[in-house]
């Protein structure tokens, strides 16, 4: 599963990335936020409201609220088979 944590500035993105790394995640910087990937169990440690079928936006956990504006789940991608 992949999520984007949207932020308003580069400085906030750096803060969020640092925080996620401290929590053991491997975030990637995006132009408008931070990409976070992993299995449901590990992501739920950070976002308790996450479910396996979640799509669209999710509430921002308090821990990340000062820097993260919103969280969105990427819909599944499939191969052009």
């Amino acid at each position: 599963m992949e999520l984007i944590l949207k932020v308003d500035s580069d400085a906030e993105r750096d803060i969020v990335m640092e925080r996620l790394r401290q929590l053991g995640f491997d975030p990637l910087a995006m132009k408008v936020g931070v990409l976070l990937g992993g299995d449901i169990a590990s992501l739920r440690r950070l976002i308790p409201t996450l479910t396996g079928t979640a799509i669209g936006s999710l509430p921002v956990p308090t821990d990340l609220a000062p820097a993260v504006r919103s969280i969105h789940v990427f819909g599944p991608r499939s191969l052009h088979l």
Partner: protein
Amino acid sequence: MPRSRFPATTESHNPVPHKVIGYVSVRGKQSVFGHPKKRLHQSARAYHASKRDLDSVRRDLEKSGFRILAESPLGLSLLGEAEQFEELTGGAVRTVEKLVHTGGVQKYITHLDITGKKQPKTLGVGLPKSKSLKIDGIVLEKPRQSQTVFPSPIPLPSPKFHLNPPNDLAVLLGAVKAHQKGIRGQRVTIAMPDTGWYRHPYFTANRYDIKTPMVAVPRTDPRKDPVGHGTAQSSNIFAVAPATKLQPIRGTDSDGKLVAIIAAFLKAKALKPQIITNSWSSDSQYPPAGGPDEADMSFAVEVMDAIENGILVIFGAGNGGFSIEPQIPGVLAAGGVYVDKNGLYRASDFASGYRSPWFRGVVVPTVCGLCGMHPRPQYLMLPVPAGSQLDRSASAAQGGVKGDFTAPDDGWALLSGTSSAAPQVAGASALILSTKPRLRPTQVIKALSETALDIVRGHSSKKFNQRARPGRDNATGWGLINATAAVAYAKYHF
């Protein structure tokens, strides 16, 4: 016999067998070892070993754990583990694929070799570690009949009408003349986020240049492709641009699920390749109820940023699906054209083709590569890891259509889709960029579009049902790419 375009030997991925059969020549008055072109003595008696030496060597070998299978006045046939042969020679036992010509066909057969500093270059021949052993030389048994060559580096046959890489694709996509002029995609790197990449012998035998694959999911194996899709589709690139460099990036987990493909794209972008080709996308409802969601828009921004930084981003148009990726402004969307056995060209009814309801002026596809037809586009014989998901599914019947008549574990699969078209278009783009490296993505797209073969028959997949017509249309865009013409256009106009 004409010289083969395949190398005489190539690296092998087959494991060394647990038990190895070899032959040990016991030292006599004359020796056949030491020089590859040594002439044979008039009589075999000159090579006979003394009974004393023969007994001594037999004892030594048995003590080392070898099983003696047969014996003659010249030497002993023996069975042992590879490690025992390594101990005997001080070298390493390795597998090598050797090209053999048999029954009018060429194929690679797995051979064993003893390699090491003091070992002769002749395939399968070794020398003893110690001269005191009274052994003249060691020969590992050569395969005397066709063995498992795995997988074959040459496309397997199928009674179904299909195209074989690389030549059929190079011809139909107009790349041959460019190749003859030495334009082969040199100095261009194409990154490919996909399911992974496996070093199939097809790539080695054709001497294609592939960088060590990267992974987006930590702790997954970069050498594996459990699905087979990335491996198969990457062969399309090289059919058009044989000298280009490929950087595969695996976006699947250990089960082959596409869980980190956005991350794989970001990793590709960070490498700053000239081209990123993508044979995957999201799948949204059509016609859409509203605009793209925020997650997709954030990805669209990422793609647009790559393009603004000079990276040509290609996405497959989709196989009847509707998704944001091929619609992102600036993306080259690759659709599908089918060329049948009579040479008739038409829009593939398997490929997506529509005018974007989200982005003004965007038509999906921009141009087309080769793609099969509905309901099952068994069109290109592509290399896959043996026994991978695609190898198995392609060989099985599906929806009343027979499989591809290859085995589920032979490393070849008959398939296609806009997954194939995207890397073909990437290959043509690499030819352009190898001659004009400073071109912007829009210029590469212009060169491909202006020189594409206009397709006037057929229609896109049923969901969109757009007809191919003279000129640009919503089924095939500008038409089927012609790589050589696009290179010439770019040279002349830019």
